[in-house]
């Protein structure tokens, strides 16, 4: 009993000290910092944010999350949103935020920097990176002749149990939104039903790459850069895997745009616009190309020579502003994939 009486004050002071330390370390309450709701991978986001801070001295505070989560979050938060900038990996989420009137018009000079197919007609957000849909396949399980011609073929019975997808991820949902925009609702519904029967669900594209590489599934729907990143790091999880680019303007050749927008409610409009200008500037795009992210820079003057050139991908024409995220989620819920 006596020991405990002495122990309590010690315990209390240790606890309080730790609590104070945490408040100092965690919250990062810098009044000038930009708050970015950012879905892109940490390595890409932090490389570009660091570059921006170096150039401008403005700090960037990132709240990570998934595309649709962050877009719906700013919809819910409305005018009170703490965010200044939203960055998503795919454009459906940007479209959602834009359709609710939450985004400010992007500076004309910034819009002018970016090729027009990566900017929506509203000019309320801009693309800053692109990623290509691919089929990653195990070279021991599938010969080149056995590969599907179109991504739509994966709904056919011969693929039962042999294909991996990540249905809860924004990447796959963006691919579905492209299928919906290109082939219409009925075809999309049938395709999703086929995938519900055929596909093994993984939590993300990295898990798909590993499963394909180990032969757990023969093939998987993914974006190009997971494979390139792993090959660049020694190929531990991609040695047995190759990429099939569908081309031919197939929905499976969909080129997805990562976008950024300034919130209309932000009280730091000039700094936030400056951030977008940096993301799409030659300096920002070079940081992207030189990072380990392996995503496509959008400026024709900046290229990553490791990647299959963006000019030969032959993607389908999809207006990034027309991709419908909520509709896709509803269709996937009906198919039982979500």
């Amino acid at each position: 009993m006596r020991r405990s009486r002495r122990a309590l004050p010690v315990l209390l002071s240790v606890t309080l000290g730790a609590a104070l330390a945490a408040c100092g370390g965690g919250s990062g309450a810098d009044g000038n910092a930009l708050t970015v709701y950012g879905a892109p991978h940490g390595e890409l986001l932090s490389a570009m944010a660091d570059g921006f801070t170096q150039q401008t001295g403005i700090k960037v505070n990132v709240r990570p999350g998934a595309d649709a989560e962050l877009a719906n979050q700013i919809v819910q938060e409305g005018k009170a949103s703490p965010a200044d900038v939203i960055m998503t990996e795919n454009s459906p989420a940007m479209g959602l935020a834009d359709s609710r009137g939450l985004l400010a018009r992007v500076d004309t000079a910034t819009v002018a920097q970016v090729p027009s197919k990566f900017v929506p007609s509203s000019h309320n957000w801009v693309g800053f990176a692109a990623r290509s849909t691919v089929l990653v396949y195990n070279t021991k399980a599938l010969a080149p002749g056995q590969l599907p011609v179109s991504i739509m073929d994966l709904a056919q019975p011969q693929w039962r149990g042999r294909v991996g997808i990540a249905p809860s991820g924004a990447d796959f949902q963006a691919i579905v939104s492209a299928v919906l925009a290109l082939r219409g609702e009925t075809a999309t519904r049938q395709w999703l039903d086929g995938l519900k029967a055929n596909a093994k669900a993984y939590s993300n594209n990295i898990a798909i790459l590993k499963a394909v590489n180990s032969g757990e599934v023969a093939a998987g729907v993914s974006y190009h850069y997971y494979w390139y990143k792993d090959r660049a790091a020694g190929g531990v999880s991609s040695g047995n895997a190759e990429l099939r680019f569908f081309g031919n303007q197939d929905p499976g050749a969909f080129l997805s745009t990562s976008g950024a927008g300034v919130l209309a409610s932000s009280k730091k409009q000039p700094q936030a616009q400056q951030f977008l200008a940096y993301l799409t500037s030659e300096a920002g795009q070079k940081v992207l190309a030189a990072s380990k992210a392996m995503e496509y820079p959008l400026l024709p003057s900046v290229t990553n020579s490791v990647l299959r050139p963006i000019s030969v991908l032959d993607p389908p024409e999809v207006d990034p502003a027309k991709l419908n995220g909520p509709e896709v989620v509803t269709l996937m819920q009906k198919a039982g994939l979500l």
Partner: protein
Amino acid sequence: MPVLGVLVALLVLLPLGFVASYVATSSWAEIRQLVLRPRTAELLWNTSRLIAGCVLACAVLGTATAWLVERTTVPWRGLWRVLLVAPLAIPAFVNSYGWVSLLPGASGYGGALLIVTLSYFPLVYLPVGAALRGLDPALEESAFTLGRGPLRVFWGVVLPQLRPALAGGCLLVGLHLLAEFGALQMLRFPTFTVAIYEQYQSSFNGPAANMLSAVLLAYCLLLLLAELRLRRRARYARVGSGAARPAPRVRLGALTLPAVAGLALLAALSLGVPLGSLVYWLAKGTTSHVAFGPLGVAAATSLGLGATAALVTVALALPVAWLDVRRPGRLATLIERSTYFGNALPGIVVALALVTISIRVVPALYQTVPLLTAAYAILFLPRAVVGVRAALAQAPPVLDDVARSLGLSAMAGLRRVTIPLTAPGLGVGAALVFIAVVTELTATLLLAPTGTQTLATRFWASSDGLAYGEAAPYAAVMVLLSTPATYLLTRDMRRASSG
């Protein structure tokens, strides 16, 4: 005190009220569209078969190991007592990380059943072991003299007396499973909690996530009711004078070797695999680099949040426990029961409710440490109440009266007499809350202020990206932080049974 108690109860009931009113204000068509669909059936089936399998496995493993250690001549009992509780210091999502990173095929129902059982069987072992030690052997001896064999005595006399402990342990396992997210997501076995998080990622606090939340909550309440029924009202204490002797131990003889081998195998699977895997990834990870900066910040954040939440939660538990012990009555019971609901609330349900409530009603609290702390308090209040109530019950109330009669005010009496007397109990309650907060994942992911990263969220971000080496240091620190608190919890038990 009663006012404080009522306020605490209201705080705990907030998420429950939110979900109920959400369902009540939804149209029937919407409910039908979101709830009555094949995916819900699939989740219900997955969740139910996991609970059934895991609860059964934990009941068998927990009871068998407790019986071996407490009632037989199996050697090295002190060692087994530690090893059988130690898995509690390894969060389930670290355990499944340990398995999956070594055996990527350990997924689906089989993998999930094996791994969560290894994580949760101590929840049955602990109460059953304690109950076995407290049993009066006289009853069993009477049964023997009436001609019953050892098996029939165990089945007919011992087991019924273990029922409250067994039911309580099984309920805890079930509730932990319903709330488990990290481990099951990693094992690719979707249950309700996993699906709610996926809905959250696709639609933030959209209707589908809230509707699934309501179904999950109903499931939790059902489990709570089932346990209450199972326990029934019966007398388990000795009637009349005299005290129970320690029971004689069963001689294992030739069965000693298989018994030791079984216990060793269990320890190897539940501790050896996750810890071995951690060491493997730590060693492998250091060949690249360990980012000590972020690790230090995350550790300080977890420590700070854990300590704050422990303080706040114990403070909230005080009026609840004090009323229950010192002013028993209908109101006190009602308040105590309401806080008990925290046990049945998965982190994801509480977090979703608080996100919506704070955005709509108190935007000043949105994405702040106070709101996150409130979530922790709601989730872990029952753990604090248990410790505080036990301590208060042992502190003689007459001392409070003496303090008052010597001229201390009620508050001063509380500060100078009651709290020092109950310090050990408060400490245990705080330790329980602390462990839970350090390893909490879902509420932290949804509610933490922008830029705040804890050990658990850092670990999750890395392991979700299958960067196992990067995740290892965070897991190791979580295990290190949980160990002293786990030790503290079991210390009294081990001291009581050192004979």
